[in-house]
């Protein structure tokens, strides 16, 4: 095993002394970003009267965007392109410096192009978002413990609901493709780095600038709209709404950049011999996910820009009084919103499919079915958006067709179950924590899928739409299935990302706490929804109190489980058992490289001769 020090010792550390890039980091980014923001705010509020609603919105939006741009300027994101424009491209030494070679922990706070650094940055970004969003969930459940009594006021509750929602959605969109898509995936396909390393750094740092913008919503009065931000309520909302809009617009830029980069990497940088039928299934899943995000997110961005224009320039896209319509917003939103569910879900499924063959020591059952399943889901997911609008009154005649496309999704989803079950069949599973995740995934995905069947049915949705039942359903798919997959992936790849094993007892305890608490939490919510409790309510009739208390108890259990997991992740990072090179005995390429992974991953580019699922006693 090579250590970091011996790696560095064997090579000269690049140190382009006079280059500007050696002097820039997140600190300078912060300073420049804040200066840009203050300058913009001061400058604009001198000319625009901020006591006027729409002018105030203009000033706030401009300030938020300038913060983001300022931060990127300050951290040196534009040095490369500018140097290229003026004809003085970065020298080889400077580029090596930007890859962070030999800079220890400080490279995590720089504009670093190494995909492994970006992966770790994403991992901690995701952990931060999950912690923030999870804490808000705890507040929500605390408030709902009682009917009539109020832990927080209605506007704070509404803000909690909306900001919990959007924080978690952002976290889950990047939870798999961020850390594992960046750190593990290039190694998995035998590449030296991503196709566009600088864009990779850009995607992370753009996203990072969105996090403070999102948090600023709290200090601007919160948001009353939920994460769906339906217009015209979002047009009516106070200044906090600008933070929401700016966050999504910035985030959409980040996902577009990341999506192009991952897709290009998988298409062009695969190792010699890795034909499409030999690509590990996680890579397929991650690619399907980001490729689906590329067409999906721009519509979200457009919806946000139009909302921002309605608020700042009184354009009236969504204002029926001047010829607009809220239905337009709903369409734009859900044309993103439904594919987005699969942007989140597919990488989670793919991680489980990657894990199961390793722990039952059998080939993935029907690789083709898995790929067809993913493709089918991705393809159909862009044709179903109006199932969120059955009850909107937009066009009741089209409810039937949308019901048909929606229920067709159960066929490719069925293939996914088949692949996992087929792999389990005849095998003797090794029940390490990642493999436990696979079973939890099956159960949660099954419940999420079946309750989705009720919701996809127009007459049943007439009762269930907008109720707690919907909330429970999508938490089963997004949290129960996708997040469980991602956590399993974290336990699975933790040894390669940190060099240590994740504390086994803690992750075991946290697994059971999370999963059992989860079932209690959402059982209560299914009951509340069936009983007729609307979702997103700060208060409810005392008739619903028992089901809500069940949910709150479950939520606290889940919360404690995640805190233990967080402790394990932090603690094992330095103090965990030293990981062997291939602790699970897997056959994918990432387990063939040592920790720390060398800068260019492989000393000699690997050549692939089969798919990574060649387990089994008796090959025919």
């Amino acid at each position, binding site marked *: 095993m090579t250590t970091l020090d011996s790696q560095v010792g064997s090579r000269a550390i690049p140190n382009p002394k006079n280059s500007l890039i050696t002097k820039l980091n997140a600190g300078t980014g912060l300073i420049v970003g804040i200066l840009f923001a203050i300058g913009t705010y001061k400058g604009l509020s001198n000319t625009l009267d901020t006591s006027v609603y729409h002018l105030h919105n203009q000033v706030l939006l401009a300030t938020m965007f300038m913060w983001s741009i300022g931060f990127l300027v300050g951290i040196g994101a534009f040095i490369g392109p500018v140097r290229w424009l003026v004809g003085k491209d970065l020298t080889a030494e400077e580029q090596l410096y930007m890859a962070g070679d030999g800079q220890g922990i400080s490279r995590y706070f720089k504009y670093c192009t190494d995909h492994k650094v970006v992966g770790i940055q994403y991992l901690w970004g995701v952990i931060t978002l999950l912690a923030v969003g999870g804490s808000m969930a705890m507040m929500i459940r605390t408030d709902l413990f009682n009917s009539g009594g109020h832990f927080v006021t209605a506007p704070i509750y509404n803000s909690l609901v909306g900001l919990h929602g959007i924080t978690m959605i952002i976290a889950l969109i990047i939870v798999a493709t961020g850390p594992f898509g960046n750190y593990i995936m290039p190694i998995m396909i035998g590449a030296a780095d991503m196709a566009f390393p600088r864009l990779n750094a850009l995607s992370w740092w753009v996203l990072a600038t969105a996090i403070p913008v999102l948090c600023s919503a709290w200090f601007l009065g919160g948001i009353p709209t939920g994460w769906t931000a339906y217009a015209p309520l979002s047009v009516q909302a106070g200044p906090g709404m600008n933070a929401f809009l700016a966050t999504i617009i910035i985030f959409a830029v980040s996902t577009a950049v990341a999506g192009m980069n991952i897709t290009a990497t998988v298409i062009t940088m695969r190792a010699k011999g890795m034909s499409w039928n030999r690509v590990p299934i996680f890579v397929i899943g991650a690619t399907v996910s980001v490729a689906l995000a590329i067409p999906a997110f721009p519509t979200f961005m457009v919806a946000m820009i139009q909302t921002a224009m309605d608020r700042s320039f009184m354009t009236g896209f969504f204002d029926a009084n001047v010829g607009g319509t809220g239905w337009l917003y709903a369409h734009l939103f859900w044309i993103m919103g439904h594919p987005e569910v699969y942007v989140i879900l597919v990488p989670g499924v793919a991680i489980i499919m990657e894990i199961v063959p390793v722990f039952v020591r059998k080939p993935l059952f029907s690789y083709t079915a898995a790929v067809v399943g993913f493709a089918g889901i991705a393809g159909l997911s862009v044709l179903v958006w109006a199932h969120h609008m059955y009850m909107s009154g937009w066009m009741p005649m089209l409810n039937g067709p949308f019901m048909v496309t929606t229920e067709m999704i159960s066929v490719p989803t069925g293939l996914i179950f088949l692949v996992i079950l087929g792999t389990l069949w005849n095998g003797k599973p090794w029940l390490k924590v990642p493999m436990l995740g696979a079973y939890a995934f099956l159960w949660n995905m099954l419940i999420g899928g079946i309750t989705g069947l009720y919701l996809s049915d127009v007459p049943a949705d007439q009762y269930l739409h907008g109720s707690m039942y919907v909330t429970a359903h999508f938490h089963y798919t997004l949290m129960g299935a996708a997040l469980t997959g991602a956590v399993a992936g974290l336990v699975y790849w933790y040894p390669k990302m940190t060099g240590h094993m994740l504390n086994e007892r803690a992750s075991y305890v946290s697994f059971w706490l999370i999963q059992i608490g989860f079932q209690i939490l959402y059982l209560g919510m299914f009951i509340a929804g069936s009983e007729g409790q609307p979702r997103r309510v700060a208060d409810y009739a005392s008739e619903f109190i028992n089901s809500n208390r069940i949910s709150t108890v479950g939520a606290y259990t889940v919360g404690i489980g995640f805190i233990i997991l967080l402790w394990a992740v932090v*603690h094992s990072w*330095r103090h965990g058992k030293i990981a062997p090179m291939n602790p699970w005995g897997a056959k994918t390429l990432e387990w063939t490289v040592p920790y720390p992974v060398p800068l260019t991953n492989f000393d000699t580019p690997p050549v692939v001769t089969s798919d990574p699922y060649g387990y089994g006693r008796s090959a025919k």
Partner: protein
Amino acid sequence: MAKSNMTAGKRAASAILATALSISVVVGVGVTLNKFSADPNGKLFATKEADTINVDGKEYPKASLTMGVYADTEQAHADGFTGMKNDWVQYGPSNHLVLPANTYITMTIHGYDGGEELNNPFFGKVMGTVSGTVNIDGVEYDSLPYNKIQHTWTLHGIPQSTQDPLFVSVPLLRVEEDDEIGWVPTEDPITNFKGHTITFSFLTKGAGEYVWNCEFPCGDDTYAKFGAAMSGYGYMSGKVTVTA
């Protein structure tokens, strides 16, 4: 590379400590949010009166309450109403009212505001008062035209088995420059008009938690005029606690 040199005891201690720390962070945030949720101006208690009143053959104790609805105006200040946070229009002195159960409540509202049109003309009706009417400067009205209203005081709650339903909605006549009733404003119509005195009575039932809000769109500049003051807690909305 450093071998794990932590004993099991130390590890367990650090785990417990970290868990406790995380929980206390979450609890701390919760407590802070909870503090922010306290009633900005405390509670406003109805004053109980000595005599009783007979309504439909049943004796009720009496209690009364005085509120104002005002922007940050000089006249309102002179009458003892002071602004809370900014110059948004608001009900005062507090938005959280505490009323005794099974009582005849007489509410007096001093309204200092002008007005335009209701979004939903339905709320021009007087609903839920004992007489079915509201007394405005001595005259009884059972409804007001949708375009003669400055605000409404609309009390409602979540229907549930553990508390009695309570619904009261009263429109407040707007102040105008050529007001027939005689509150002719002197000099500056915004700061110096006297406003209307609006009185109505309703019966509380059993104990319960309710809310009230204004149904007149006074969140100027915003969509449907229901943003700003209308959507900010503690301006044109609040709670009503009926105590046994």
